[in-house]
């Protein structure tokens, strides 16, 4: 088995009656990029905080870089993290904020200056944090996470507030780090971004892990979608009813019907439509994206 950067075994966190995370089991192989996805309130940040020793699990256990999460001092010097958005002292400059953390972690102060340039804040490093835009704050948060030259980088919504070029820069940065052996555990709402970079995925819903494994296994396991467009729009309703009567799930989107089914059913659909007097202008099968799979998995079970 691959060396693991993160593992969770029955990890549970309860706040009184509310269960934020329930018996989570997952693992993240070292040196990979692992996406961490789930709707708001599904327990992502709680999980990340437990992995970083900020909150104690109610039960269960976990390891980070081979060390038990009950002893964060053993692994945190090798971990960089940005949790729930960047948090810094507003009255200090971006550079000075980094220097506070560099001093605390025992890293050379030159590393702070180097990282300010690396994340594109070189000319604004001396400005107070409170004057930064959301995107600049996010860049500073990423710089702070990179301070220890981490073996494991944990990023919670790193692209929030970034413009498209900023998002691309973060994507390239993550890929570059992974190419140099850093494990990246990244949560994001931009599922298309995660689909592009993540080799592994952990998916949460209502505090439970609903998928943990390779991204390609998740997508391969998802049924494709048959997209059919009738020649005449008036036939849409008739076509939907026809599909529903045949026992398939169907959705109406952008003047087309979308059927979740195996691609082998496409000729059958074509024939059924013809027999019902509906001419199809087009019919095709498409593989579900991560976003579509995510919605299917998180909504269907809700």
């Amino acid at each position, binding site marked *: 088995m691959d060396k693991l950067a993160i593992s969770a075994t029955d990890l549970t966190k309860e706040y009184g009656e509310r269960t934020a995370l329930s018996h989570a089991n997952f693992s993240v192989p070292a040196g990979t990029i692992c996406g961490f996805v789930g709707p708001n309130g599904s327990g992502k940040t709680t999980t990340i905080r437990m992995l970083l020793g900020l909150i104690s699990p109610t039960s269960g256990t976990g390891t980070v870089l081979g060390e038990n999460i009950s002893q964060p001092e053993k692994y945190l010097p090798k971990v960089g993290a940005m949790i*729930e958005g960047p948090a*810094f002292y507003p009255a200090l400059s971006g550079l000075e904020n980094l220097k506070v953390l560099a001093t*605390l972690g025992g890293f050379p102060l030159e590393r702070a200056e180097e990282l300010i340039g690396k994340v594109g804040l070189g000319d604004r490093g001396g400005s107070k944090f409170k004057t930064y835009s959301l995107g600049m704050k996010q860049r500073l948060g990423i710089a702070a996470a990179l301070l220890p030259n981490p073996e494991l980088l944990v990023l919670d919504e790193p692209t929030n507030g970034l413009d498209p070029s900023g998002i691309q820069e973060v994507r390239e940065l993550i890929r570059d780090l992974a190419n140099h052996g850093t494990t990246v555990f990244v949560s994001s709402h931009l599922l298309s971004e995660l689909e592009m970079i993540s080799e592994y995925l952990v998916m949460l819903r209502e505090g439970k892990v609903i998928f943990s494994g390779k991204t390609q296994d998740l997508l391969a396991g998802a049924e494709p979608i048959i997209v059919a467009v009738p020649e005449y729009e008036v036939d849409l309703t008739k076509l939907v009813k026809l599909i529903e009567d045949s026992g398939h799930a169907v959705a109406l989107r952008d003047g087309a019907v979308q059927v979740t089914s195996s691609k082998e059913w496409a000729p059958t659909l074509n024939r059924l439509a013809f027999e019902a007097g509906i001419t199809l202008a087009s019919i095709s099968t498409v593989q579900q994206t991560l976003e579509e799979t995510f919605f299917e998995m998180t909504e269907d079970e809700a």
Partner: protein
Amino acid sequence: MIRVVRAEARKLRRRSLLLSTFATVGGLSGLFTTIVYLMINSKSGNSRRGERISALQLSQPDGLVYGFKLVGAFLGIVALCIFASQTAQEYTYGTLRNLLVRQPSRMKILIGKFISMKIYALLIVLFAGGFSIALSYALAGHAKVSTAKWSSHAALVILGQTTLNIFLSTLCFGTLGMILGLLFRSPISAIATGVLWTLILENIISALIANTAKWMPGQNFSNIGEGGSAIASYKYSLLISLIYLAAGSTLVAILFKRRDVAN
């Protein structure tokens, strides 16, 4: 531990905080010392509660620190505000999580913070004392106060004792601020509670109920700065303050160590 102290020092030495703190301390020190010397012949008095301090009294060895003693009581409030805000802001800014990722030992964070703020409090006291003494020398001639005994050995001993007492008093107030900051996790709530209790509520309670002053934490902290008073001896105030602060510190240290960092 030293890394925590140095990291905290980086925050404490920011220009806006330094300027506002030292301007406040300098202003208070200057104001009280000036009143003592410039209002020396005023019928309404030149000290607290209308008390009159004559030129003869000021020309004694302890006359040198008279202004310093007056401002000493207020340095505690300044320290309370700074200690409370520097501690509680880690929660309101959400920066505590960054600190704990870089230094997972919560006790090291807490003790390192305390040490750095202690050094800051010492600087405040030394600045206030130095400014008050310089001003005393500058104004002594105008008030016809002889400074001959101010450079005696006895005067130096009194200066040393007063500085130590005011520092201890300031530290007690500051520690109370830190305790409140950790309890309330909000600078405004911590400062408001601390100032309201020590400056107003304690005085009201002491005025309404006899013999309660010597049990009040704020009164005892101030009493240390004054080197003891008719209300309570210096040693008594030290002991009572130590008990209060040890109990409070133990409570917040346990809370700080065990509490989830969820913000």
